[in-house]
């Protein structure tokens, strides 16, 4: 057992699992339900939702009302659908090898 204990420390790593899950926001910017793992804090989930709601609202004000938003990041895709002034937001990691190919800032 001592031998195994010697290597136990080397197994630990800093690799974090990418968040995957869904949450819903009401029209007042409150999180109603969430399946997002605890690695993303409640405050971060709320921030994401509130930014998404602000973008939907901004689009309406700019006279381009939208019912769905898709954000492509290097390793995550966020999809948001408008629901009666609120929104349902999906966080999904991109499958490895499916990185976006545009060179961006």
């Amino acid at each position: 057992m001592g031998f195994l204990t010697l290597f136990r420390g080397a197994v630990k790593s800093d690799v974090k699992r990418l968040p995957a899950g869904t949450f819903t926001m009401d029209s007042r910017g409150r999180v109603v339900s969430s399946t997002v793992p605890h690695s993303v804090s409640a405050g971060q989930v709320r921030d994401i939702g509130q930014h998404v709601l602000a973008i939907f609202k901004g689009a309406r004000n700019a006279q381009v009302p939208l019912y769905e938003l898709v954000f492509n990041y290097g390793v995550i895709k966020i999809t948001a659908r408008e629901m009666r002034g609120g929104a349902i937001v999906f966080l999904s990691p991109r499958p490895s090898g499916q990185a976006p190919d545009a060179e961006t800032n």
Partner: protein
Amino acid sequence: MEGQQKILLLDDDETMLELYQQLLQELPSHPEVQTSTSGARAISLLDAEPFTLLITDLRMPKMDGLQVLSIVRRKFPHLRIVVLTALVDEEFRSRAYAQGVELFWQKPANGEEMQFFKDCIESLLDREYRQESGFRGMQSKSLVDLLQLECLSGGSSSLRITQGSLEGRIWMQNGDIIDAATGDLKGEKAFCEILSWRGGHFEILPPEANHPRLIAESPQALLLNTAQTIDEEKGDPHSTETEVLRKTSPLAALGRFEGVEFVLAIPLDEREPASSWGGENVEQLGGWARDSWRRMRQIGELLHAGDLSQMHGLGLQRHIALTGHAQKGLLCAGFRRVTPSATVEQTMKQMFAKWAS
């Protein structure tokens, strides 16, 4: 009665339904008026037989008016819809118009308002009748204006254009120009020939199902190329139509991609104005694009999600896509609403590559 207009009234209040049914049956066109007290039944009725017009309340139990609107708009894109509600709310009004309703009416409170309402409904029915017969009074519009309007509305129709003894046809399908013909010419050559006519008359006729597609280019690119060709043939490089279409914007080349309605290049520095091809409301849209991009980059950092490469939004009127470049700023493009999400994403990548280079 054949050719009789049919109205479907949807309201959870049966007394209101009876009252409006009676009033609308007295219109000069004597429409047939059916009623429904629930959204589900209204959709079943629409499935079962064609209606000219749906008049719906917004506040109803189970399935509310906005839900009905979104289903009806998707399933019956050509149905005319009027909202008639006691609910006076700007947000509901804008959401209803975003769903493509023809009119948003507050329930009439007196005889005068009721008369206005009846006149409006009669006018809508009359317009629908005239359209089916192949007439639409737009004599003050040029043929290019008309084509652009038809493309924007995403409709299907065939146009008959006459100039003296010459006759031409242009076929449109879901907002795309798919074919043209005049004399022995077909496709793009025929389209170019028809647009070179200086005057004449046109009629909009019902679409022809299964008409073959001989023109593959997007409507904007086709109109631009045609205007250039006509000008070159006439040796007139400064014609008004070319000026309107071309606007000599370096972004025009990006507007030739399939489905693109407009393109904006937005500098990251807010003091610098955005440049646009085919865009409206540029300042407000540019502000929204900058704000959205900044917000979602913050989210990317928060989640350690990597760079934000692209965002796009789907709308009932049009889709919008946005991508960024470290030096050049943001590229924003509007796409026709019939463009699939995956096509928007892929096309935006190609546009970005061209723009960045």
